């Protein structure tokens, strides 16, 4: 059995637990308890007599993150607490959770696994992951306890996950700085001594993380808040294990971080402050569970403070107190749960006479509470003695040490007082009516077992030497032999005196409890911790909303102005930083000047046009000029593509124009001015950027590669086409998918949204008002031209690899032919493009993918295959190009068909949608493939 197997077994237990809970109901607790006991036994056998057991399995080798596990003294102590207390709590749950609760057992077992992973991790990243898992388990366990638990669970998560962020910061900084994720190596890195600033920051972050997890001021509020969770969760997570994760982290980092002054300062002040505050709050509470929660806060404060002292004695004290506290506090919480079950309340003002009503359980409770108060000869006494002694002998000096010890004694007075309060307010008096004890036996057994363990541990404290001393030794980097063995009686010394003061003070407080209660029956702080968390939460959300308000508008210019300005600034900056020659394009050919003038004219016309038709025509001028530019730059393919696209763009835009008003709404003068300024600035930056960054470049090595090797590699002599269908076919495939999505989106939009109306088709009366006459020329022309264009399209496709042409151009040509047919039709309803455009696009993409799969035969997706058949060179790149053809063709068909629907004076779609009240609605799913056809036929039948 290895550590890895132990961890895997714990994970398996979490996986099995819900199934067992489903079939066994409440008794699943017995199963989980037995399994955890078994794991505890395995853990004990795994513990090496000296040194540490380490294992490692690669997890993310690229980042050097491994599942490194280490079982040393410190890990062993905490693992023992996690598994041992876990087993007892599960035993208790078997009686407490009566119904089938697979979620509960899953989370509890998974929490045990996460805690085990946390304390065993020797990889700082694994440790962080486990840390977060415990946070999540706690959140989910609180959340599922009751419908009202959502708010406290959320607050708990916010606080503890916030601390997790601090830990993440520390982990990241350490990994970057030390170059390793191995926890042992990180902690032994010289950076802790050599860079005080870095070490101080990391130490503060680690302390912050531990403070949130272990409920230290000012993050303590979540722990009492989390008491809505059922008793087993409180006993296990919020007393024994999860809150100890912070303590474990502090002890683990103690040796390394003690080198900084930040560490002891934070820990001692925060710890002592929390200890005193928690004790006072506990005295204030009347709800037993809240009382125990504040007691936990207080005790954890004591632990944090003593870890801050940092000496081997202090860490010994901390280790022993971890064990003592886990025992007496889980006993306490389980007792409260039992009382609540049987008495129906946990308010000490309503509880009385429990001593006679349930004598056995009460005796056990007294034993546990006495341990909490630190009465001899219990374990709580032994550990508190050590704590006070270690504090008094602080390395910071006698005066400081004495001050610390006195503050801890003050907290202990409170501890004794509230412990006594539990006993004297609930046990004496007339016995109260209780529900029968049936079915709660295992609960009582669990309460008793933890309490008795605390008593035995006190009397025979030497038995704990092999558990506690190695933990302290590992935490401080000393040898076990240098530590004092544990003992109950140290003779009469300062610590004993302070203990006596604490007990005496507590006794006085109990004696004068009426006055104490009166003094404390008020608000001690102007606001509660819960309110503070809530306020911080709502303030964060409000701030987020305010940030969101900056962009919450559908006004396009507010969205566009920011990127325009940012890009302009970036362009100018880059231009300023550019060194070397600015590309001025050499001696510009005269043609370039003419092209630029044409572009400027077109742009100005597009901007100035008051009518939509005018703007579209101006945009067309610009588009055709750009095509000429491309041609002049030596790109026949691109120029052809641009030309064809421009034609189709104009066709589609004209189709759209029918639905829109003829003129633009006029922009206000201010808007024009602002737009003009932005436009001129953007244009200037674009010009400067183009000149500065590009222009006279030499041929790039990639460009040269394609020019030199295209023919040898692919057999094609049209280099652009070989790039599209051979070298970078995967890019092209991606683009085809984009086209397919565009076609789908257009169809979906027109199915889901009502097309807006527009001016009716009626042309002014005149010689051209009859569409049949009007289209005579176009129809006569289309008859011979369309077949020719389709043939040409096929030819362009076939020769594309070697000469201008290819799938894109061929498809545009073919679609232009169909668009011509469409424009030549007498009316929209006679428009003959009844082709399943979505299917065509889809088939295109499939064909392209299929040709790519063929390439796998040669070892790589999309690698073209070559073959010579009867002297003709054939390649699967042509098949790919066919896919391109079909996809592009389908998209253009979709555009023409969808936007070419009749204007809304006779809205086919609305009528479809409304339908006759009795007629079944036509299925849109069926019409999706060929909606145009459906629409048109439906319209033809519709009465006008």
């Amino acid at each position: 059995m290895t550590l890895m197997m132990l961890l895997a077994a714990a994970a398996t237990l979490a996986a099995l637990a819900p199934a067992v809970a489903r079939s066994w109901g409440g008794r699943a607790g017995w199963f989980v308890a037995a399994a955890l006991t078994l794991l505890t036994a395995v853990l004990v056998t795994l513990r090496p007599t000296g040194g540490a057991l380490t294992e490692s399995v690669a997890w993310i080798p690229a980042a050097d993150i491994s599942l490194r596990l280490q079982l040393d003294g410190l890990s062993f102590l905490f693992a023992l607490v996690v598994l041992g207390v876990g087993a007892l709590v599960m035993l208790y749950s078997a009686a407490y959770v009566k119904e089938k609760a697979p979620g509960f057992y899953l989370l509890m077992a998974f929490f045990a696994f996460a805690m085990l992973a946390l304390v065993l991790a020797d990889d700082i990243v694994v440790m962080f992951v486990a840390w977060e898992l415990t946070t999540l388990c706690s959140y989910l366990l609180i959340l599922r306890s009751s419908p009202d638990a959502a708010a406290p669970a959320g607050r708990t998560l916010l606080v503890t996950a916030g601390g997790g962020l601090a830990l993440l910061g520390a982990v990241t900084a350490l990994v970057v700085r030390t170059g390793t994720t191995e926890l042992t190596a990180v902690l032994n890195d010289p950076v802790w001594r050599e860079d005080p600033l870095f070490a101080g920051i990391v130490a503060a972050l680690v302390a912050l993380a531990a403070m949130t997890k272990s409920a230290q001021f000012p993050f303590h509020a979540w722990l009492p808040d989390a008491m809505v969770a059922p008793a087993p969760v409180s006993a296990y997570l919020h007393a024994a294990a999860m809150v100890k994760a912070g303590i474990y982290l502090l002890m683990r980092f103690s040796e390394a971080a003690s080198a900084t002054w930040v560490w002891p300062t934070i820990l001692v002040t925060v710890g002592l402050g929390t200890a005193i505050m928690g004790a006072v709050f506990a005295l204030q509470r009347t709800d037993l569970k809240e009382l125990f929660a504040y007691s936990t806060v207080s005790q954890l404060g004591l632990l944090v403070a003593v870890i801050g002292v940092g000496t081997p004695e202090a860490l010994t004290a901390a280790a022993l107190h971890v064990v003592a506290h886990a025992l007496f506090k889980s006993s306490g919480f389980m007792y409260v749960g039992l009382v609540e079950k049987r008495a129906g309340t946990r308010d000490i003002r309503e509880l009385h006479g429990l001593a006679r009503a349930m004598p056995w359980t009460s005796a056990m409770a007294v034993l546990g509470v006495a341990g909490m108060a630190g009465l001899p000869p219990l374990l709580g006494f032994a550990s508190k003695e050590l704590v006070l002694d270690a504090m008094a002998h602080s390395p910071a000096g006698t005066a400081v040490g004495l001050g610390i010890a006195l503050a801890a004694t003050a907290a202990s007075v409170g501890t004794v007082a509230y412990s006594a309060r539990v006993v004297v307010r609930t046990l004496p008096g007339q016995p109260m009516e209780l529900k029968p004890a049936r079915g709660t036996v295992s609960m009582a057994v669990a309460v008793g077992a933890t309490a008795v363990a605390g008593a035995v541990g006190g009397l025979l404290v030497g038995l704990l030497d092999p558990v506690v001393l190695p933990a302290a030794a590992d935490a401080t980097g000393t040898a076990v032999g240098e530590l004092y063995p544990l003992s109950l009686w140290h003779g009469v010394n300062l610590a004993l005196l302070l203990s006596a003061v604490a007990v005496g003070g507590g006794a006085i407080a109990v004696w004068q409890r009426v006055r104490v209660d009166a003094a404390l029956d008020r608000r001690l702080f102007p606001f509660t911790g819960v309110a503070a968390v809530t306020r911080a939460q709502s303030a964060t959300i409000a701030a987020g909303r305010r940030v969101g308000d900056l962009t919450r508008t559908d006004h396009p210019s507010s969205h566009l102005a920011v990127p325009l300005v940012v890009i302009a600034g970036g362009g100018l900056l880059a231009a300023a930083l550019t060194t070397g020659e600015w590309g001025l394009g050499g001696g510009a050919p005269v043609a370039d000047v003419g092209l630029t003038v044409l572009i400027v004219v077109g742009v100005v016309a597009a901007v100035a046009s008051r009518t939509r038709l005018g703007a579209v025509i101006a945009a067309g001028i610009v588009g055709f000029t750009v095509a000429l530019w491309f041609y002049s730059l030596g790109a026949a393919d691109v120029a052809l593509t641009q030309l064809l696209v421009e034609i189709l763009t104009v066709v589609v835009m004209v189709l759209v124009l029918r639905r829109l008003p003829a003129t633009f709404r006029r922009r206000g003068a201010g808007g024009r001015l602002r737009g003009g300024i932005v436009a001129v600035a953007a244009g200037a930056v674009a010009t400067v950027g183009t000149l500065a960054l590009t222009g006279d470049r030499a041929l790039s090595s990639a460009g040269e590669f394609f020019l030199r090797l295209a023919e040898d590699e692919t057999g094609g002599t049209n280099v652009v086409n070989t790039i599209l269908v051979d070298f970078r076919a995967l890019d092209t495939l991606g683009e085809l998918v984009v086209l397919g999505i565009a076609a789908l989106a257009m169809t979906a939009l027109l199915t889901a949204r009502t097309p807006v109306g527009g001016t009716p088709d009626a042309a002014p009366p005149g010689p051209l008002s009859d569409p049949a006459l009007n289209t005579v020329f176009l129809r006569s022309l289309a008859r011979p031209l369309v077949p020719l264009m389709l043939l040409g399209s096929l030819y362009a496709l076939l020769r594309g690899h070697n000469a201008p042409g290819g799938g894109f151009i061929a498809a545009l040509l073919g679609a232009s032919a169909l668009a011509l047919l469409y424009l030549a039709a007498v009316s929209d309803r006679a428009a003959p493009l009844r082709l399943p455009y979505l299917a065509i696009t889809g088939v295109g993409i499939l064909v392209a993918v299929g040709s790519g799969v063929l390439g796998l035969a040669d070892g790589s997706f999309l690698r073209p295959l070559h073959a010579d058949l009867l002297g003709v060179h054939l390649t699967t790149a042509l098949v790919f190009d066919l896919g391109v053809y079909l996809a592009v063709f389908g998209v253009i068909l979709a555009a023409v068909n969808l936007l070419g629907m009749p204007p809304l004076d006779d809205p086919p779609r609305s009528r479809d949608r409304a339908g006759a009240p009795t007629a079944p609605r036509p299925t849109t799913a069926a019409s999706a493939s060929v909606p145009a056809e459906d629409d048109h036929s439906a319209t033809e039948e519709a009465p006008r």
Partner: protein
Amino acid sequence: MMLALSVGALVAGAAYLMLDRTFLRVIIGFVLFGHAVNLLLFSSGGILRRTEPLGSGPDPAVTADALPQAFVLTAIVIAFAITVYMLVLAVTGRADEDAPAAGSDEDAAPDAADEDAPSGTDDRAGMDDRAGTDDRSGAARRTTDEESRA
């Protein structure tokens, strides 16, 4: 130099049009912007060598860089698809001047944010490309809405 001026003119026109609130002008601005970017891509490959990258054994000293050409070729087609998509957006949905029809089952979203719009250059927020839609269609649509509710 001339190419850079062309790019500048196209960007300036595009910026001006895209800051307008009429959707068709935004679309035309987008088209112009696409042209500008395509020319810029060409420029990045160098514009002194202008021989077509066609035929066997092209001379790298005078032949244009084929890589930007391939980029631009696909970019043109993609830009076309997006243009058409935006045109579909322009002619679907509810005309702004319609009163928000109670119980209208569609297109609440595009106008929902109107109230949050800051006071801009115009007194109305949102795209007004359908502003001139004559009332008949609105009335017709309302009738169909009522029919469908019936």
